């Protein structure tokens, strides 16, 4: 998948999480910090997001251990083939 496709998938999954939490849906871009406070998601939400990205993309970039990322773009990069 292309980076832009993965970013769209992240946007949709984050929107689902925010909607479930009863929060306003926020538009994100590659520079949005996932836990920077703008989005209103916590680390368990982020864990859920990573799990769902694995299902969407069929890839698990963390299979060898944790890789650090801060922004939506950095997360998307991990899934680009």
């Amino acid at each position, binding site marked *: 998948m292309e980076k832009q496709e993965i970013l769209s998938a992240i946007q949709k999954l984050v929107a689902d999480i925010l909607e479930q939490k009863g929060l306003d849906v926020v538009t994100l871009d590659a520079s949005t910090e996932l*836990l920077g406070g703008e989005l209103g998601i916590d680390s368990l939400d*982020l*864990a859920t997001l990573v*799990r769902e990205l694995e299902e969407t993309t069929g890839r698990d970039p963390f299979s060898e251990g*944790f890789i650090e990322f801060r922004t939506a773009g950095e997360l998307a990069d991990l899934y680009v083939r």
Partner: protein
Amino acid sequence: MTTAPGLPLEAGDGAALVARGAAVVSREELRRRSDELAERLRQEGIGRVMVVSDDPVDVLRAIDACARAGADLWVAHTNLPGAMVEELSREFRVQLQIGAQDEARSVAAPTADTEPATDGDGAPQARIFMMTSGTTGRPKVATHTLGSLLAKVRTSASVSANREGRWLLTYQPTGFAGVQVMLTAALSHGLIVVPEERSPQGFFEAARRWEVAQISGTPTFWRSFLMATPPGALELRQITLGGEAVDQATLDRLKERFPTARITHIYASTEAGVVFAVHDGLEGFPKSWLEQPVQGVELRLRDDLLQIKTPNAMQGYLTEAAQPLLEGGWVATADRCEIVGDRVRILGRQDSTINVGGSKVYPLAIEGFLLGLPGVVEAKVYAVPNPISGALVGADVVLAPGSEPSEAKKAILARCRAELATYQVPRVFRVVDAIQVGTSGKKG
């Protein structure tokens, strides 16, 4: 008793002890408030107290005053629902609830079996009862004394190595780990920094404002904290990881980000408190520790499970024990280990407990909750491994005939979010036709 009970807080010592936002409470202020409470306990003959608050000032005030007035103290875990706190309060015949407002309660007279314990000399020694977290089912209640808690803190080396430290409180102040951090700060003339909001950003902002140098948290906390903290923003001296097994990648990231900090991961159990601490930056612990006692503790493997023998074991359970005590004072843990070269790696719990970011989830309890919801006929709850939180809760559910799956799923998850703690909510949720049952008759 030979030493004066209570915390070393002197009148006239204006040093800050607890900071939250811009507000601080000094050591002398806490002393004064604790004196008032101890006086009330003595005057009114109160021997059974419960603290119901997530404010460290209330928890420390209660611990100190009860130890000095000889009153038993129950520390209600923040995660317990109000109705459960009420039930426990009645059951233990609590006479005073400590919180934002201290509240006297009317109770029946205590019976003989609930009289305070005595130490060797026959003098009454106040007990501290700490609870496990969890919103489903009854919490386990473990018995300590202030003396036994302080002994564990003193031997943990955090006190001597971090005099006048500035500690970020990442744990709930009502849990065992949170109390340990608070007592460490109280003993070592340190500062307890409380975040205004328990989010990665809230933790970072509190740490930056108060120039925190010491942080103790779970590996899951650290992974999210790394993401919220820009490089160079903090100068940490002590990084402590506990509550779940830590992986090498997380240790390496911490070392890279905070090159001058001492990085310690600790192994603790509810029964024994902190068992050992590892400072060499490698996951697991040296295999040589299985051959000779280390830090006053003996370790051994039996069927790949870790067993420990420690002088600091807690005094017992008010409720049923979580881990069996074996012959010769050994405690059997459920932590499965493997030996790799000269290292022992901890692989995780042998039992089915799901560790979500350091919080324990008991699958049976969540299955019980799901089965109590309308339209759910069978449920299986399991761990889904996850790089961020270690694990997430997964649930497979069988619906009653005629239910519309997507509507039912929405309704079930809404109830979960409303009634369970966030870490207990199933993050992977599937509606299935059937759940496999093993030959033993148990859910496979």
